[in-house]
């Protein structure tokens, strides 16, 4: 192993700061030139790619580290994303930001509660086939709509749980990859982008995912994502966000996320299946969820996704990660064979 790039975040790390000090040796990095990203594990993936593309390393181990069970509730931690003077005094956390975003989405584009709940039904349905999923239960729209109000208009079943998630991914440069496996999956593109900080300074329905996706598509040479992406694993800590992200990823027009969902296109047997793994609604290790999405895409391309393997041929997969309030920061990776 040439280098190790891990992702972890101090507040999401069991109260042990400088997280990668702690798991340095457990991450096989003893006397290695290694580094770490904070916040989102797809950052770590892109940094590992940089190290390989620079010609300095033939191989890299990418780790996503988040042991949710050791942490308090995610919102206690996301509360500390706020500035101390203004937003913290109003009690802001990620769920509140998402609730505000959801209401704007419903009000501006007529997205319905049923469509948002539908995402939960679809994703938890898919999760039943995923041995790695945290939440496994069969649910109907009515169950979601009847679940308790957490922060109106968000109900508890529309919000992702707090999960364990430690994931390791091995990257290698071309010649080494061909030596190691008959079925390499190739890096095609990556893009990330961050929005302004204060919630009130942003348009919560026109954020930076568009920019991140455009960058990834450019590098990957994708001009029509609707046609060229075979499967998308996207990060929807709040179910309605999946609909909004469809729009930003170019799967449908602005405001059409609900209709696009209703068309069935994103079901496991649809034209562009989204979250056949069950998504973040089924498993939410805050920091490593982006890398999970990528690993799921990898398994789909290799045909190794077990019961959740798509029936159609998968050549190109998209993985998405987001963190920060209402999608302040996004990362998109494209892989293919």
């Amino acid at each position, binding site marked *: 192993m040439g280098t190790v790039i891990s992702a972890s975040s101090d507040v999401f790390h069991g*109260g042990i700061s400088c997280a990668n000090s702690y798991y340095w*040796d457990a991450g*096989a990095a*003893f006397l290695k030139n290694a580094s770490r990203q904070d916040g989102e594990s797809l950052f770590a993936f892109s940094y590992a790619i940089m190290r390989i593309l620079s010609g300095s390393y033939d191989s890299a181990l990418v780790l996503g580290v988040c042991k949710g*069970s*050791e942490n*308090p509730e995610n919102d206690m*931690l996301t509360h*500390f994303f706020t500035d101390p003077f203004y937003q913290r005094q109003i009690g802001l956390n990620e769920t509140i930001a998402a609730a505000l975003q959801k209401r704007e989405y419903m009000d501006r584009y007529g997205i319905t509660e049923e469509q948002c709940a539908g995402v939960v039904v679809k994703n938890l349905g898919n999760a039943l086939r995923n041995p790695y999923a945290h939440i496994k239960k069969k649910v109907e729209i009515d169950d979601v709509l009847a679940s308790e109000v957490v922060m109106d208009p968000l109900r508890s079943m529309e919000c992702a749980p707090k999960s364990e998630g430690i994931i390791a991914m091995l990257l290698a440069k071309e010649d080494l990859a061909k030596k190691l496996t008959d079925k390499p999956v190739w890096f095609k593109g990556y893009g990330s982008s961050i929005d302004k900080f204060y919630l009130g300074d942003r348009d919560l329905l026109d954020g930076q995912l568009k920019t991140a996706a455009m960058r990834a598509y450019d590098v990957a040479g994708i001009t029509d994502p609707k046609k060229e992406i075979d499967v998308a694993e996207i990060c929807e800590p709040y179910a309605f966000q999946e609909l909004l992200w469809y729009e930003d990823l170019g799967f449908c027009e602005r405001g059409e996320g609900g209709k696009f969902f209703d068309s069935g296109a994103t079901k496991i047997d649809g034209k562009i299946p989204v979250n056949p793994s069950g998504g973040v609604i089924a498993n939410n290790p805050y920091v490593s969820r982006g890398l999970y999405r990528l690993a799921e895409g990898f398994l789909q391309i290799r045909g190794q996704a077990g019961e959740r393997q798509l029936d159609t041929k998968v050549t190109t997969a998209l993985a998405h990660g987001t963190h920060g309030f209402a999608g302040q920061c996004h990362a998109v990776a494209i892989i293919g064979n």
Partner: protein
Amino acid sequence: MAEKQDFYILEDEVSIPYQNAYGPTWTRFFEGFKKEKIYGSRCLKCNRVLVPARSYCPRCFIEVEDVIEVSQEGAIVSWCLTEYEYFGMPTKPPFISALIRLDGTDAEFVHLVGGIDLSDPEYVRKTVKTGMKVKAVWKEEKTGHILDIKYFAPVK
């Protein structure tokens, strides 16, 4: 830059509760403490005996023979006397932290050195020496905590 008191300063204390899992190896280690035993682990590849016990060798990255009892005596490899105090400090000064190489082990065990008068740094300096033999002194009541060993005291 001078501290300008004409600007507001917002004071706050953050308190975040976490729960860390012991896992099987560390559970066995602390069960050992309750019985006044110190457990280490032997790496099956590099053959080093590491203390405290662990589930893998940090260098060879393989599983280890994970609980073997080690000696409660050893030699001081390094030490320092802490005189300052800060917020939330887990152990109150003055105290001596030390790296202790327990007999038959290949890594230093970090613990306290005690059983001597700590009030005068000059006396401590003259008394505590690198290479000095020390021995674990246990508390009466053991709860499976690292401080079940009160400290390591000089062997007379």
